């Protein structure tokens, strides 16, 4: 059988999956946990606690601030120290809730046992019930974009969902958190997928995994056959050829079911697919079956010069410094600290930034690895055009942004760019293509929004 992948563009970077075989460790509790109020796409959450309040693990500390928003739960027990500002993953000071950790006392409603709960044992679950539990538990997309999950599960009336695709691609170099999660919690993930399919009222599911994770493909194929044989659901594990950015929603839909998502504002559900990260499936399982809100996640802490890179089950709000210390401390010399992997990650200037709902990795690159080379003139080799997974012309968009020709940028579909960075990665002249395009994209989107507001 031909191994599937998406149809245009893409690159293959060195994998560097240093922590592939490192079993997940439970990270130590921090002394102080920091919860940014904006950990998701949409309106920031609104604090419902005050200075001095006692909280337990799983206590609601901030409620959703709008329809597109998500509540935030404490991951620690202790006292609210203050509601202040601190540097978060955007690099700016943003409102946060800071909690001083005392002990580890959990809310009683959370089921802490390891027992696998199945849908068959819970006849009370209806699609509406699942969506409402997911919403109340503050579950957002765990792949990094952090879009509230309940919204994805309730598609607009104009679109009809036909299948759920689990994104277990993990195409970013270095990161192994999703792989470890699959190896260690395959059963839970499959129940999570079943819940997602039930909530979306579909019977078909796919799990897309790149072929560099044969162990996960084998394990999940076996488990799927055991679990879904003879059931109302059909689930297929789809091995995918290694290619970045396969983990992008649109690329994954293309790779798995060969359908192309049209230009924005179209979303995958317009072609019948609901894409959820494998971490999200696990979070959905815990939220629905264990009444456990989203307050911990799997995160990879990695880097070639780290003494002991590893995978961690970490409470949100833990400063990155704690995790780096657990891996042997920050290597000497100049380093580049990234929240996320080397392709999509965001460079940070502080190690005190907390782990949030979307922090799938903390990557530390040495100066030599991270240092950009001096840009040279574009030789029109069109390598960037060849690798663009969205079929754009990056050299042109970058130039148009540079000369501030926003009208032409819009005509050339700059808003379709998914900011994967393949163009910049492949450019033999080391041109800052994505820097320019990102700037142009945000400007053009601003223009489009203000135009729509005028109408």
């Amino acid at each position, binding site marked *: 059988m031909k191994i599937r992948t998406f149809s245009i563009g893409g690159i293959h970077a060195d994998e560097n999956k240093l922590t592939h075989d490192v079993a997940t460790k439970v990270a130590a509790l921090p002394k102080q946990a920091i919860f940014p109020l904006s950990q998701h796409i949409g309106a920031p959450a609104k604090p419902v606690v005050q200075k001095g309040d006692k909280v337990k693990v799983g206590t609601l500390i901030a409620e959703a601030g709008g329809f597109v928003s998500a509540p935030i739960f404490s991951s620690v027990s202790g006292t609210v120290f203050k509601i*202040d*500002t601190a*540097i978060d993953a*955007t*690099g*700016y*000071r943003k409102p946060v809730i800071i909690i001083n950790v005392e002990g580890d006392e959990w809310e009683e409603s959370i089921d802490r046992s390891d027992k696998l709960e199945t849908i068959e044992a819970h006849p009370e679950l209806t699609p509406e019930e699942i969506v409402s539990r997911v919403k109340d538990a503050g579950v957002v997309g765990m792949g990094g974009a952090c879009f509230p999950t309940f919204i994805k599960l309730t598609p607009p009336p104009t679109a009809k969902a036909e299948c759920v695709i689990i994104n277990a691609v993990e195409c970013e170099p270095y990161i192994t958190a999703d792989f470890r999660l699959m190896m260690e919690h395959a059963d839970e993930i499959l129940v999570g997928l079943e819940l997602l399919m039930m909530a979306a009222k579909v019977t078909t599911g796919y799990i897309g995994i790149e072929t560099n994770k044969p162990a996960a493909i084998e394990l999940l194929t076996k488990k799927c056959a055991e679990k879904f044989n003879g059931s109302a659901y059909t689930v297929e594990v789809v091995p995918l050829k290694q290619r970045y950015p396969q983990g992008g929603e649109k690329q994954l839909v293309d790779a798995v079911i060969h359908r192309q998502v049209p230009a924005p504002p179209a979303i995958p559900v317009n072609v019948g697919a609901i894409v959820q990260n494998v971490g999200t499936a696990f979070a959905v399982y815990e939220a629905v079956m264990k009444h456990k809100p989203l307050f911990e996640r799997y995160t990879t802490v990695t880097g070639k010069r780290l003494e002991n890179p590893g995978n961690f089950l970490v409470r949100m709000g833990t400063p990155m410094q704690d995790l780096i210390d657990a891996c042997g401390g920050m290597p000497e010399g*100049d380093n580049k600290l990234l929240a996320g992997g080397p392709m999509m990650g*965001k*460079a*940070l*200037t502080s190690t005190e930034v907390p782990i949030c709902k979307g922090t799938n990795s903390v990557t530390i690159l040495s100066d030599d690895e*991270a*240092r*950009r080379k001096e840009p040279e003139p574009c030789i029109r080799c069109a390598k960037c055009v060849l690798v663009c997974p969205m079929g754009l012309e990056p050299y042109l968009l970058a130039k148009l942004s540079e000369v501030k020709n926003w009208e032409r940028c819009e005509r050339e579909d700059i808003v379709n760019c998914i900011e994967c960075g393949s163009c910049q990665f492949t450019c033999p002249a080391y041109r*800052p293509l994505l*820097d*320019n395009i*990102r*700037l142009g994209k*945000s400007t053009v989107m601003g223009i489009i929004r203000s135009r729509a507001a005028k109408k």
Partner: protein
Amino acid sequence: MNFILIAVIVLGAIGLIAAIVLFAASKKFAVYEDPRIAQVNALLPGANCGGCGFAGCGGMADALVKGADAGSIEGLSCPVGGADVMGSVADLLGMAIANGEPKVAVVRCNGTCEHRQKIAEYAGLRTCAAMNVCGAGETACGFGCLGCGDCVEACQFDAIHVNPETGIPEVDEEKCVACGACAKACPRNIIELRKKGPKGRRVYVSCVNKDKGPAAMKACAVSCIGCGKCEKECPFGAITVEANLAYIDPEKCRLCRKCEKVCPKHAIVAVNFPAPKPKPEADEQPEARKEENV
């Protein structure tokens, strides 16, 4: 011979017919343009800088004449030409004009290399706009000048330049026409158009940091920490502290400089005053200051 004659007659006839058609068309489809628009346009400086808010001087002339017909040209002003040009335009249109005082671009950041510690290195595209998207920049201040010179690029009058020693742009008051292009280009809204003031004297808060005291203090040696001392000191109620940041209202400020003396962080700057004691870090315009303007 005959051929030449025929050619001349035919071409002459064609020319005549075409002339009649063109004449008729120009009468029939004539568009009336107020002759004053051209006159006003001639008075405007022709810089087409867009500082007035219109696409160019032509647009401004059009708006001025339309405004005059509607009874008022208030709110329209040419930053380049200033009072002189607006006065002659007002004379031409027979309008009274409440002329705004001349303004100048003011860079409200004093976070020079020695005041603000560099905590990181930015290696991406060297424009302020791109750097602003990536986070706070190379220092811990998320509000201050990034120093890549988007304002310099935007200025059509060669009036703003980044001082390589401080990393902060400086405005040439002689050349600045207060068109506001630099203020628009700055992604952090650091540049403000402020009243030029009598003899160019101004007092302003040279900081836009809205962080709380400790954070602002840590980020920069001359940041406003919102302590409110200046607000209490000001006898004219010109200073307000909002979101941990003081602002001096140029309309109310009487240039007494009391606030400057009480500011514990030296974030308040007074320029172009005759200087009994030199204040090196407050110096935005060393050339102008030397002139004894008394």
